[in-house]
C-alpha cells in the first residue's frame, strides 16, 4: 500500500549553494554524525552512487545500502534501500522507500525552495504506523537540513553571502559529481 508525503521548506541560501551543500559528501559522517557512523562506496554508475551507510550498535556494524541518484541540476533521488547485513531485522525488509529531493531557485529572495517527496510502500499490517514513520523521516530530514544550514550560515558570516559559492567551486574542493555540478553552477554557467 502506497503512502506518500512531502516536506516543503524555503532555505535561506542560493540554489547553487543548496546543491553544493548536498553534494559536499565529505561532511556526511562528521557534520551528520548523529545520523551515521560510516559510509562506504559500494558502486558507481554515472550519476548513481550506491553506498553502505552504517551505525555501531551492540558491538555490531548495522545499517543499510541505498542508491542515490543525481538528476542535474538540482534533483536527488534515493531508492533501493536494503538492510545490511541482510539478517538484520530492519524496517527496510518490509517497507520500500523512495525519496525525491528537488531544489528550485526563488530569485526575488536569492533563496531556495526545497521539496522533499517520500513514497513508502507499506504492508497492510504496518499501515496504522504510517504517520509514525512519516514523523520519524521528517524529523531525520529536518535535523539534516538544520545541520547543513548551520554550516552554510557560519560560512556566509565568514566570507559573505555573495562569495559563499566560491568555497565550493575551488579546484581542490571535492564533492559528488563535481564536473556536472560545475556545468550548471560553475563560473560562466549563468546559474
Amino acid at each position, binding site marked *: 500500500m502506497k503512502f506518500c508525503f512531502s516536506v516543503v521548506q524555503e532555505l535561506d541560501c542560493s540554489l547553487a549553494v543548496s546543491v553544493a551543500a548536498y553534494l559536499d559528501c565529505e561532511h556526511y559522517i562528521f*557534520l551528520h554524525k548523529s545520523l551515521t557512523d560510516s559510509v562506504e562506496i559500494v558502486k558507481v554508475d554515472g550519476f548513481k552512487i550506491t553506498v553502505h551507510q552504517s551505525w555501531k550498535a551492540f558491538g555490531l556494524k548495522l545499517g543499510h545500502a541505498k542508491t542515490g541518484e543525481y538528476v542535474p541540476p538540482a534533483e536527488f533521488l534515493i531508492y533501493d534501500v536494503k538492510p545490511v547485513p541482510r539478517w538484520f531485522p530492519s524496517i527496510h525488509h518490509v517497507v520500500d522507500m523512495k525519496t525525491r529531493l528537488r531544489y528550485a531557485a526563488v530569485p526575488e529572495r536569492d533563496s531556495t525552495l526545497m521539496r522533499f517527496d517520500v513514497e513508502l510502500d507499506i504492508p497492510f499490517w504496518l499501515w496504522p504506523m504510517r504517520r509514525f514513520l512519516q514523523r520519524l523521516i521528517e524529523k531525520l530530514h529536518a535535523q539534516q537540513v538544520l545541520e547543513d544550514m548551520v554550516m552554510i550560515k557560519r560560512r556566509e558570516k565568514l566570507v559573505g553571502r555573495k562569495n559563499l559559492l566560491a568555497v565550493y567551486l575551488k*579546484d*581542490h574542493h*571535492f564533492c559528488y559529481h*563535481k*564536473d556536472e555540478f560545475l556545468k550548471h553552477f560553475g563560473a560562466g554557467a549563468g546559474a
Partner: protein
Amino acid sequence: MGASLSEGRYRSAEGALECPWHGYSYSTATGELLCNPNDAIFGCLKELYQSYQPEKRPEYKLQAYSYELRAGLVHVRRPASL
C-alpha cells in the same frame, strides 16, 4: 572552513584535533594538517572528476596562539594582526 574547532574531537593519542564538519585532523603541536579521512572513504570517486584537482589545495594549517593558565582560566594572547 568555518567550523568551530572547540566543538571538534581531540584525539589525545595522536595529539590531533578533528574538524567537526569534515573530519580533517590537525596537529595541536604544529597546527599542520595530519589527514583527511575522506580520502579513504571517497578515494574511488576522487579519480573520476577532472575538475577535482587536489594538488591545487592550499596549505591548511591551524594558527597557534600563546596562552597562559591563571587561576584555572585560559588567557589567550591575541596577535596584533587580529
